[in-house]
């Protein structure tokens, strides 16, 4: 077995452990390449049976339309259940307040919607596509990461996790976040997508787009961004390396039209994938703080 076979076998094993250990698991689906890869791995783990979990999407309302279209097509093809939690509902219910100002984003607000969706559906395990190579707080997280009843991660109280043994025992109200592709790098994911011929949303590939420059990053010129007279809208050939919502995901200039081009581009890049995420740039501990608060 080469290393991709090894990573695949490990991820399938972890997905099956979730099925075996939990009453009501869910797969958190963002429409990004990592969660699309997870869906592919779930097919390998459970077909010809059905998935033992629904897909759950936390919709900020500021998604790329391409992502939503892709999601709906994928669900139709899979014939699996999709549950959508809307950030707009949390705003309308007065649970969260929309940020103001030029750099307003709904990224932070997602956590509340996520935790409410988990509670409403009684999910005891949520599978996510986070990888340890993405960010230094993620590099510290276990594959089975126990969250308390407030969804919080306590990095100082992580359970030891030995060999291939995942302790998913929890009390009612707690839940476990499970990260089957923890040990994959960005390049591993792309090599796997190429090998397995996995379909992706078109925004991962080079296309023309109207963008504005904010804090040195190329952001999509959209109504969701508070564009004013200081912003100059320009048309560029770009693609996205990571896909969150439109207000926090920056594009990169790119001529990568095919997956081979993308793999070559990543190998030559000097900037990490999350370098294009505004949500990580808030502070040194931005990701750790969000995880402690219940984020993915």
């Amino acid at each position: 077995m080469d290393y991709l076979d090894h990573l695949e076998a490990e991820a399938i094993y972890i997905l099956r452990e979730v099925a075996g250990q939990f009453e009501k698991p869910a797969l958190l689906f963002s429409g990004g390449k990592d969660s699309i890869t997870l869906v592919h791995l779930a097919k390998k783990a459970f077909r010809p049976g059905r998935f033992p979990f629904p897909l759950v999407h936390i919709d900020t309302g500021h998604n790329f339309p391409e992502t939503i279209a892709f999601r709906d097509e994928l669900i139709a093809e899979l014939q699996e259940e999709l549950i959508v939690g809307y950030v707009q509902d949390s705003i309308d219910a007065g649970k969260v307040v929309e940020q103001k100002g030029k750099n307003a984003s709904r990224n932070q607000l997602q956590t509340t919607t996520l935790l409410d969706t988990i509670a409403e559906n009684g999910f005891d395990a949520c599978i996510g596509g986070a990888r340890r190579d993405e960010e230094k707080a993620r590099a510290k997280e276990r594959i089975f990461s126990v969250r308390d009843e407030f969804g919080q991660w306590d990095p100082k109280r992580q359970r030891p996790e030995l060999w291939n043994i995942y302790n998913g025992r929890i009390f009612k109200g707690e839940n476990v976040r499970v990260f089957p592709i923890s040990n994959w790098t960005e390049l591993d994911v792309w090599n796997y997508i190429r090998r397995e011929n996995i379909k992706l949303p078109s925004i991962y590939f080079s296309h023309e787009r109207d963008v504005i420059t904010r804090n040195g990053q190329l952001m999509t010129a959209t109504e969701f961004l508070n564009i004013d007279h200081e912003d100059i809208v320009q048309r560029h050939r770009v693609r996205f390396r990571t896909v969150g919502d439109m207000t926090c995901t920056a594009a990169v200039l790119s001529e990568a039209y095919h997956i081979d081009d993308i793999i070559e581009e990543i190998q030559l890049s000097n900037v990490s994938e999350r370098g294009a995420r505004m949500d990580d740039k808030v502070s040194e501990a931005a990701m750790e703080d969000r995880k402690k608060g219940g984020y993915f």
Partner: protein
Amino acid sequence: MDLLKFITAGSVDDGKSTLIGRLLYDTDSILDDQLEAIQRANRKNDDGTLDLAILTDGLKAEREQGITIDVAYKYFHTDRRKFIIADTPGHIQYTRNMVTGASNADLAIILIDARKGVVEQTRRHSFLVSLLAIPNILVCINKMDMVDYDKAVYDKIRADYERLAGNMEKTQVDYIPVSALKGDNIASSSSNTPWYEGKPLLEFLETVEVNRQPQTQQARFPVQWVIRPQTVELPDYRGYAGRIVGGDFSVGDRVVALPSGFMSTITRIELAGENLQIGENGASVIVHLADDIDISRGDMLVKADEQPALSQSFESDICWMDTKPLDLGQTYFLQQHGKITKVKIQDIVYRIDIQTLEKSASDSFGLNDIGRVRFKSADPLAFDHYASNKANGGAILIDSRNNLTIAALMIDKPVDN
């Protein structure tokens, strides 16, 4: 491409995180924005160079205290190999996190501060590495710049460690003098240590041969999940899903389901709809049998002529990882891959004194203690001797009162009741 998983272990301040930072830096594995983040954090070494430890100390509390609390995983590759590094904590309080990182490692780098030599944590970590059956140890004698690259210092520490390693059978031990801070013998051979003729660290890691597990391993298939679509097209489909942990299985193999003892024959092995003639060690597959026998999650398929121990009484090496000490009156859960059973600890066979490595009788067993105990389990457990099959001889203990993982078990052998 080949994958090498290794850990860095050793005492606090021996420079583990700095060594990893240096390896990543020297292999161009640190990207511009990550480097900028380090510069923004503005943590400098005494000589004004960037503090590379910050790359792996991913938690706020770690950066505040300048120590590693939990294991951080880092990924890099060269033209020759892919690497997964687990940077593990040196502080005794966080030994359980070191064990977490070590359980899946092929190789352990043990760092020793050249000024301090072999200390208690060197002994503890080395002993754990040997207990966890990591086949290769690389001793990096670090901070050579602080002892003027003195060969005599290196020789003395090496001789001390060789005495320690004398107790560890089956472990290959190598030595390199380094300065993680200055980069000596990391990516290239250092002119400061002309007396050292071996490979620099990076080349060593790229080329070291790892004896992962015995080639003679017997085939084990713990069942994780039963796939039964019960659809119009597939009314009778029944596949056993799991990951092969040791040996391999072929279509036509005569197998036994444990613990029930029912026998059958493998009619099909598949992965994602593709039929395989052989299911290899490490592969996640679906297995079909000729007979409809009762098999569910936690059961194990093995070849009829290669059976593991099956027992409710057994002895195990154990590393205690909880602040609450071992309680002989308590019922615990034991988890071995997907199998969970209730257990009691019958008695403590011995506890090991980490200073002298001597075994002695003991009534108590607390945080970070290592030794051997005897278990009695509610269900029979199908297991192999840990050193011959880690995945089927390793287990954890869970406290049923708080669900925490409280001990690591390296099962040795069945015992008479």
